[in-house]
């Protein structure tokens, strides 16, 4: 049954809210940003919460942790843990900087993403990211995720007690 409520959601009408970016790059906007430009964005907008070099404090560390995931103290950052570079762009665009979400231009988000990927040793110092290059970045932990395997505990109530 169709109730006939609501109004048509034309692409133009919803454009400002349609901000998600998929791993294949769908949703990435025009524009681009370099590591160098990102360094400036990061210093101005991000360093206060994530540390001068992304080391964290007060908010999450964004750099480091490679090789720690299988240890007793995994350090999970963009570099060590995130499977898709597109997610970095998506998250910064929707949620950062924390005190002014959705305030950065597309160029600034590309740039901040490039800088953070560079700090993590994933893209070179001269990298420039855009809608074509960003989805092609292969993240170290790309294959680090597995499906839910639960139930994984097989308890049976004590038969004596029943």
């Amino acid at each position, binding site marked *: *049954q*169709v*109730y006939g*409520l*609501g*109004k*048509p*959601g*034309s692409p133009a*009408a*919803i454009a400002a*809210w*349609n*901000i*998600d970016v*998929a*791993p294949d790059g769908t949703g990435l906007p025009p524009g681009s940003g370099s590591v160098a430009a990102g360094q400036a964005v990061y210093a101005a907008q991000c360093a206060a*919460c994530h540390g001068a070099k992304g080391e964290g404090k*007060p*908010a999450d560390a964004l750099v480091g942790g490679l090789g720690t*995931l*299988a240890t*007793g103290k*995994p350090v*999970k950052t*963009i570099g060590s*843990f*995130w*499977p*898709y570079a*597109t*997610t970095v762009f*998506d*998250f910064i665009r*929707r*949620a950062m900087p*924390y005190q002014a*979400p*959705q305030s950065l231009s597309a160029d600034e988000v590309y740039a901040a993403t490039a800088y953070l990927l560079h700090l993590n040793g994933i893209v070179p110092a001269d990298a420039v990211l855009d809608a074509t290059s960003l989805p092609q970045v292969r993240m170290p932990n790309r294959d*680090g*995720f*597995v*499906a*839910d*395997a*639960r*139930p*994984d*505990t097989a*308890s*049976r*109530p*004590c038969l*004596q*007690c029943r």
Partner: protein
Amino acid sequence: ASAALGAAALPAARATGAEPALEVPAWTRTPGEPVLWHAYGQPDAHEAHVVRRTRGTAVLPGAASSLTPLQNLHGIITPTGLVFERHHAGIPQIDPAQHRLVVHGLVQRPLILSMDDLVRFPAVSRIHFLECSGNTGVEWRGAASTSIQQSHGLLSCCEWTGVRLSTILQEVGVDPAAAWVLAEGADGAAMSRSIPIAKAWEDALLVYAQNGEMLRPEHGYPLRLFLPGWEGNASIKWLRRLKLGAAPFMTREETSKYTDSLPDGKARQFTFTMEAKSVITYPAVDHRLRGRGYYEISGLAWTGQGRVKRVDVSTDGGASWREARLEGPVLDRALTRFRADWQWDGGPAVLQSRVTDETGYVQPTGRQLIAQRGLNSLYHYNAIQSWKVATDGSIANAQV
């Protein structure tokens, strides 16, 4: 082993020494406060300790959680003012007249719905629990909490009213290629999760009312997604957008954040279901027994897989078990209150509860969980909880 809990009727000696003669108290000798003292009622001043609390202090208190005081609650309904919070960018204050829900992507008729539109669709009301996947996570590495509010308080149960998501999917017409739904909030985090479309068709709700009244700001006013039995973070609050797609959108919340790390460095992803869990809420670490005698053990059991089938309790740390009474109605993916009689002989005791759900799943021990998942999972810790009673009546959190 058959347990002797409460089987022997050994009443405490009734307090001797008569009560001093009762006097007519001041509050009987004068008229009280007028009707509409509070047009919207408040708890009594003597209950001011029954509030939500945080775990430590957050540097940015908008990206934090607060917990429900289970040690003070009765029955299965959580009063809305005490329902736990989890925000990623604080509580937005939304004008419901301006709020919209966009439904688009792989659909035939993308729509923009106002709240006036949404409340026009056929509604349903359901009593369901809501639990954060991080609930009890502090206990993975040993008994950590000195209050059940801290250990288990990311848990509540309410009556939710709203529109079935399936009703809205029919309204927009779903493209057969659609397999996932991105849900996105209007908060400063634009909090977003990908949901398998099967859940959207099955029982997902677009909720606008909670325990009879409109949602509160901290719970998603004026609209939230509600996914019965699934981890709370996926029930996106302040819902502004649903986008249908062929694949999961791989947001930060389902990659960086709400995944469960294993000892080999891999992480489980899309671990939505809240498995069966139970906990004794009285007597718990927050309480102290006043002398030997009768106590009713009371607690909560729940499962994201359906209904609770039985709860067993132990007072000897799991050496023997005994079936608890389940308070009806036992509802699908709702808290179920259980109760069991106990005569405390004044000696040391370890109180435990263990739920079995209708799928046959039995609540595991912490050891079983750690054997499977190691110590880095953070989320989905649903182990049997032990409360250790000392001879002086004090109670400690313990892992036995």
